[in-house]
């Protein structure tokens, strides 16, 4: 097990980084939505799936990957806005069960809908030619596309951080994640904020989907297991904490990657073991606030 070359290990760490970035995108959306709205968004995996399918569709229409990369998440985000405004909003004040049921039903509808629209056989699309090669990193050759995923996610995260810390809307979102009651008591209309948060969350999931597409293929069930792992990431990071989502996403990505490398049989369970360990030591996750949603 330990006669492993440093190069292979380093390559594996990089792969974990890529996977981690996808998790981060998903977890941030989930954490925002859960933290602010107490909504367990079971349909998050379906938004991820939708991003991949929209990406395929747009690529077919425009032939341009970069355009699809920008537009697909926007389309998913818009879809998310509609879902919030017309479905989730009605459940305000009813406690956490109803949104869970609603989004579960929604995910069934979305997965089956995708199958009906795009067929039962999966689809593939390729990264743009510019990224199709492998880059020599010195210790190993690594697919350029994956490096791109890391870069673009980092850029999006920086933009998101700027939005959350530098704008007024961002301030309200962060405050609302910490203490929704207080924010309303201050007279701020949370309705608009929820709309924005749900839209951003689903757009991020959609972005994760279109980024993952060229690496894994596009098929209706692709979001189903991702949703569970995303929840694990959010819990490990701490509900409502965005720094937590980032750290936990990368951590879980590395855990999956390295376990697959050293002990493939354990890779499915390792994620849960890590979660249990983290929760045992830090009851509210790595960066979560105690008392939040308990």
């Amino acid at each position, binding site marked *: 097990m330990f006669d492993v070359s440093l190069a292979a290990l380093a390559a594996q760490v990089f792969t974990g980084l890529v996977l981690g970035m996808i998790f981060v995108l998903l977890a941030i959306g989930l954490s925002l939505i859960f933290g602010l709205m107490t909504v367990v968004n079971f349909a998050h995996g379906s938004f991820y799936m939708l991003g991949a399918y929209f990406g395929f569709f747009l690529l077919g229409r425009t032939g341009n990957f970069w355009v699809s990369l920008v537009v697909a998440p926007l389309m998913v985000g818009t879809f998310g806005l509609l879902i919030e405004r017309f479905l989730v909003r009605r459940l305000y004040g009813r406690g956490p069960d109803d949104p869970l049921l609603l989004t579960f039903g929604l995910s069934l509808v979305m997965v089956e809908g995708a199958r009906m629209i795009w067929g*039962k056989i*999966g689809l593939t699309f390729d990264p743009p030619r510019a990224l199709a090669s*492998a880059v020599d990193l010195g210790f190993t*050759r690594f*697919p350029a596309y994956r490096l791109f995923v890391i870069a673009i996610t980092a850029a999006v995260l920086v933009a998101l951080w700027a939005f959350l810390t530098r704008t007024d809307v961002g301030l309200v979102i962060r405050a609302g994640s910490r203490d929704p009651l207080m924010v309303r008591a201050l007279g701020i209309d949370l309705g608009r904020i929820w709309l924005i948060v749900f839209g951003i969350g689903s757009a991020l999931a959609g972005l994760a989907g279109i980024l993952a597409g060229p*690496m894994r293929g596009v098929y209706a069930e692709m979001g189903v297991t991702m949703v569970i792992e995303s929840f694990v990431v959010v819990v490990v990071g701490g509900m409502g904490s965005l720094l937590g989502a980032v750290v936990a996403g990368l951590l879980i990505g590395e855990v999956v990657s390295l376990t697959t490398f050293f002990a493939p*049989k354990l*890779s499915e369970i390792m994620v849960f073991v890590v979660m249990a360990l983290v929760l045992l030591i830090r009851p509210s996750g790595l960066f979560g606030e105690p008392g939040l949603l308990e």
Partner: protein
Amino acid sequence: MNRRSFLTTTTAGAAAVIAFPAVLKAQSKDPIRIGFPSPLTGPFAALADDQKRGAELAVDELNAKGGILGRKVEVLIRDDQLKPAVGAQRTQELIEKDRCQFIVGGLAAHVQMAINEQTKKSKVLFISVSQSDEISAKPDTSPLTFHEALNPTITSRAVGTWVAQNLGKKWWIIYADYAWGKQNNAVLQDTLKKLGGTVLGATPYPLGNPEFSAHLPKIQAAKPEVLMHMTPGADDIAFLKQAISFGMKKDMKFAKPLHWIPQAKEGGPELYSDVYGAINFYWELQDSNPSAKRYVEAYRKKFNTPPGDYGAYAYSAILEVARGVELAKSTESMAVADALRANPVYDHYKGKQWWRKCDNKSFQDLWMMKGRDKLKGGEWGLLEVVAKVPANEELDRTCAEKGLA
């Protein structure tokens, strides 16, 4: 007995005698129903669709000829959701409520076995139509359990032998860590060793988590001649994408135990060119095989598309049920099973097949295929026949090895 009761009895008796032939006729005009659980929803829906169409074609052909024993044939297709509990439930429903006399079906090994438990319990004939090593062995098999499809042992021995003799004897194996993957891995390694080859390494991965970039550099460094991969369904697409992005197709040959047509279509020549694998049936066999020609033409005529792989199993199994009923002149399951064992040879879509008596296993030809660089002859011209592996009982375990006879 007074006059009234005498009259009542006699009238009733007379009525019964007059009605009896009508009753008999009504009974014998009852359709023969074959239940068919299949995963119509879920990741293998495309294969299930093919199964459904194969079954429907068989039923149409039978009814066009006047049915079986003068009775119409019906196939009742139900969604088993790829879950054993649902498969078992549907089977119970088909037998109990819909009064099916026979069951054909199953796509996943674990679902087949759950269906089998129910058919064994209800003493109904079951012909399983997808891969499984256990279904024809102890303790799962029974005198009423028949297995129409290929199994991992047969497929991997055939593929392993051909690949070792034609592509290279130094392999690396990647396999999904569950029953099907492990079975194929075991058989492939055994086959290779017997032919004097070497397994440079074997890497399991968790099914449904297709992240291979960890292993690929290691595999490249080991320089195998052949990379064998048991990566079913969507995992196969992910695997090929990743392997190609590492440039591995140039360095080694790719082979797998089975080609699946929906996956080949999904990945297209870009992913599947030069990938070798076995298949039970491919529509282009119509050019050289008269049974195949008949089947392909009939399927094309009805569905406007060439037949796939798994549909043919369903087609054949339904026709076998019919043949058994005709031979036994009865719809009683054990009689039909005995009739099939007594007359084991048949040919419905690709050539001679036969049932082995001790385990009710169907032996049949299979073909080695290779993915084409470019489609030929339309959007389904994805694979090319490379070699035929004739039916051979030595490709499977012996009945003794299966715990039978």
